């Protein structure tokens, strides 16, 4: 390939070398003329490479009458392309010694192949194939509808408490598309048509709605040449992309409900809305969640689990692109009352909005953030996913190297302020799971 052409096509960003933690993620990035953003991360510790493509489409971009579609589509992306027969996608990657997978989230869908370094070109060609000309037939669509419906049963319907997130989110969000589950409604899935498939593909599966990350052992100039060769001529998408911008109104009244499930052990699920991913407040919320339920001396573990009130409690913060959620779960021990569990968890959460956390707890949370950031960036897949999502959400992959600085800026007063903003009695959702009585 002509070198001059390269320079014209690629907008080459500076190499990032940053301060803070001893080891920084060094990567380069550029955008093809069709809008495909590319990030290269070199690491030749082992002779392996990883190709990831993140499309900026998730369940939140779906038509409310076609929920589960982003996820169904993820399955269809393995069906084949103009030059890859049905069923061959898996086969080719494995025959090359690789492994592959994909995932659908509220905000994005990611596909990746882990391959031996000498098969990088193949993986790039394959991803370009399905971005350029995916091919699907009736058999494929019908099969994958069936598979997805079984997936729903396995993950949700046949799991004790399996529907909890669905039950909470549909109450937490009244207008925002986060109100429906990623896996979707089986009826919507059954009713989806070829036209739906086609429109979805033409709208979202376009280079200007994606970021490609190549990580591992490769030669940079060679990788760029292949990327230009296979992706460069894929046309830019032209259809308007539905990016929901509805603002979910604040919840004014506490919500309380009961779900009867095939379970023997009652459980209580408590939820609050929370900051969107990447906002300053999201870092504070991560630390709050750590203080509530992170280390062995965290508040829920010490004051609820270790007192014998619960079999187990759990708390997690989920940051999404447009919003976020904090979920707490408590399984009462035998002979203990779910109401006491609820009161104890809520008291711990709300206490954060009444008083500053101790200096010691604050230090623990900082140390934990440092550990988890390092842990996340230990593998090629961890780095790839972090770079891809940083670009997708913030158009700034370099944020992966700034995480610790963001945490460093958070003060104990920030924690109090964020807790006060989000952990209000009226903004709480409480759902009891009780055994079905036959």
């Amino acid at each position, binding site marked *: 390939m002509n070198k001059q052409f390269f320079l014209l096509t690629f907008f080459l960003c500076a190499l990032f070398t940053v301060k803070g933690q001893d080891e920084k993620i060094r990567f380069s990035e550029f955008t093809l003329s069709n809008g495909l953003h590319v990030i290269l991360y070199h690491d030749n510790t*082992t*002779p392996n490479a990883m190709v990831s493509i993140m499309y900026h489409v998730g369940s939140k971009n779906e038509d409310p009458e076609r929920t589960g579609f982003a996820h169904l589509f993820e399955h269809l992306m393995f069906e084949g392309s103009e*030059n890859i027969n049905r069923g061959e996608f898996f086969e*080719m990657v494995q025959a090359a010694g690789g492994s592959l997978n994909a995932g659908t989230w509220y905000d994005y869908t990611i596909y990746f192949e882990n391959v031996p370094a000498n098969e990088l070109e193949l993986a790039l060609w394959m991803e370009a194939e399905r971005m350029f000309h995916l091919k699907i037939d009736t058999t494929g669509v019908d099969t994958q509808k069936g598979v997805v419906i079984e997936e729903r049963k396995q993950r949700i319907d046949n799991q004790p408490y399996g529907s909890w997130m669905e039950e909470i989110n549909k109450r937490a969000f009244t207008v925002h598309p986060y109100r429906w589950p990623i896996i979707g409604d089986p009826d919507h899935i059954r009713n989806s048509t070829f036209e739906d498939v*086609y429109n979805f593909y033409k709208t979202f599966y376009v280079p200007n709605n994606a970021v490609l990350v190549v990580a591992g052992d490769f030669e940079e100039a060679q990788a760029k040449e292949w990327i230009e060769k296979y992706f460069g001529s894929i046309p830019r998408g032209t259809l308007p992309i539905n990016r929901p911008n509805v603002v979910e109104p604040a919840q004014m009244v506490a919500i309380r409900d009961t779900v009867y499930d095939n379970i*023997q052990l009652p459980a209580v699920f408590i939820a609050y809305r929370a900051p969107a991913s990447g906002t300053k407040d999201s870092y504070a919320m991560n630390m709050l969640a750590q203080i509530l339920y992170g280390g062995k*001396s965290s508040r829920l573990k010490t004051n609820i689990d270790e007192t014998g009130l619960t079999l187990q409690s759990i708390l997690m913060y989920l940051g999404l692109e447009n919003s976020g959620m904090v979920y707490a779960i408590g399984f009462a021990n035998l002979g203990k009352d779910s109401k006491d569990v609820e009161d104890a968890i809520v008291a711990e959460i709300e206490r954060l909005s009444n008083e500053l956390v101790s200096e010691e707890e604050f230090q623990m949370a900082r*140390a934990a953030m440092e550990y988890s950031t390092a842990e996340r960036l230990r593998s090629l897949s961890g780095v790839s996913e972090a770079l891809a999502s940083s670009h997708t959400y913030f158009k700034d992959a370099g944020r992966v190297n700034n995480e610790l600085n963001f945490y460093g800026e958070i003060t104990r007063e920030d924690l109090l302020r964020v807790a006060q903003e989000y952990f209000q009695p009226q903004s709480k959702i409480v759902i009891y799971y009780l055994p079905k009585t036959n």
Partner: protein
Amino acid sequence: MKTIYSLFAFLFVALTLNAQTLDRSIRPESAPAKEIQIKDAQVFTLKNGLRVFLVEDKSTPITYYSLQLDVKPALEGDKAGVSDIFSDVYGKATVSRNKEQLNKETDLIAAQLHAHPNGVYISFLKKYEKQAIELFSDVLLNPVFAQEDFDLAMEKMRTALSSLGDEAGQMNDRVAAALTYGKKFPDGELTTKQTIENVKIADLKTYYNTYFAPNVARLVIVGDISLKEAKDSAEKYLGKWKKKNVPVAKYTIPSAPETTEVAYVVKPEAVQSVVTVTYPVTFRIGQPNYEAANVMNTILGGPSTGYLFVNLREKHSYTYGTGSRLSAGELIGRFRITNGGYSGTSVKAAITDSAVYQILHEMNRIINEPVTEKSLKAAKTFLAGNFSRNLEESGTLAEFAVNIDKYNLPKDYYRNFLKRLDVVSVNDVQAAAQEYIKPKNAWIVVAGDAAHAESLLPFAGNNTIQYFDYNANPVEKPVAESADVSAEEIIANYINALGGKDAIEKIKDYTIIADMSAMGQMLTLTQSFKAPNKSLVLMEMNGMLLQRMAFDGSIMRISGMGGSQEISEGDMVENMKNSLGVAPEMNFIENGYTLSVGDMGEVNGEKAYVLTAVRGESKTVIYFDATTGLKVRSVEMADTPMGEMQTVTEYMDYRDVEGVKFPFLMKQNAGGMASDITVKSIEVNKGLEVSMFQ
């Protein structure tokens, strides 16, 4: 041959053509493979017998220490649960640190500390190394088993045990483990509500005092740490740990069942059944065909392209995930069908029996059919790729060194892994399948709704479904709803539902034209019948005759692309005579069939009467809808050289033709080949010539 696919194919053609003409049909060739470097772990032994395995990795900010005991503890027996409680109590406090202090010190350095019956693990950021190792060795050497923590652990365990039975997957796992290993082997012991009450705090202390010793342990260190630092650290913190004599328990080594048996765990209202096929098998790391066996299992049960995945998920949509695991064990290994992970596969409840059938079919297939060179090569490359990718995690090198030590493997065992893998042949794979895959000596374990249990009877070598509770204790078969009708009544109902005996007998001949889709092909079927027992079936594709099968009442003539033959006697002819016409069931009794009625069954969620008809070697089970009386499913069983073959047909969309109902849609599955037959037209009493049936 061009398949029908391309007709339906929905092609997303790119809108713009590019000036550059890239031929995208050219698949990139592999570049030369890069060499995989395998660095040896550094190994040293302390005076007290503790062997230390160090992998120095300068690139990671996180270090971990993992102490692993290599012991064979006594069976827990009626105290099953000691190790569960031990996990929850051990590591909570030490002689010099109470629970609160220990937790606080761990959290201040964000260390991840886990103590368990087989050792202690800690990971931490390098800068906290000193504090972390101090905590690690304290937990290892000076634990306190406090009554308060014991009581709390017991309370939680009681609560957890009370929810057993909530999840079909867990029920399946428990029963499958107990049946595979037997209750006299550690992996087969189950903690129950009864056994947990026998566990005392003294048992935990005894366990610790008996089995925690440096001479039966290995310490793995991975991180940015030099050999000298590791030696100093191990010596300083663990050098004073005293060796002792550690008893070694003898277990009853399990063996596979003599014949395949079916175990059913009832989980009422389950929307999916969790299915596994499992048995113990002698399989160890380092044995000569270890690589061949792994290649074989990859082809049978590997992800995405394994026989099981392609059949059960991609072809039939029975499940979201399936695969198989062949795991090596020091004393005994295990084969099992999984969901692709570590549990049984969850299948659509209504097709539980079909899923089991397909699983066994694929197990037989890998034994009977040599694998293709292509799939052999793919599986080898896949395993080589996995091997290389596992090295991304530096702990893998430590694991290699530990295995070499534990199993007495040659020093270069892992360096030669790829060479050994490379020479595995098609014959080696088949030999491994014959050695390790045992569809005739397996436990089929299913957790699901009771309604689907009896459909598994054909798979039980001992002709019984054995019911178990989730503690793997045998229980009585749940009381099924018995069908309070006779075989004669079922048939009479059916005849009435079709339109009555008179209307049926008025049909002297008919011709049915139907489309048949099978394996992506579309065929045309023309079936003509003339009373009492003449039949002609033509199978065509795109106007081309593939097969003709004529029966004139005594001689069957089959011709087609594979040549032609005439058959005038034997089972096939006898069966033919008795199975023709609108409702051959009408004449079952006078034709010498033995009929029996089973318990109420279910077809696609509807209650059904189950009628079994046996005549000579042939056996057919027919399901009649309890409400409409119509035939909704038949299962024909035949012995073939490939083992027993089942043909399952479902009858749907009954429509009236000249006063008699005919099914217009039939879904058939014959030995794993699925086809849909859609009727296009039925013509009746056109006075078909006798000659056409010659």
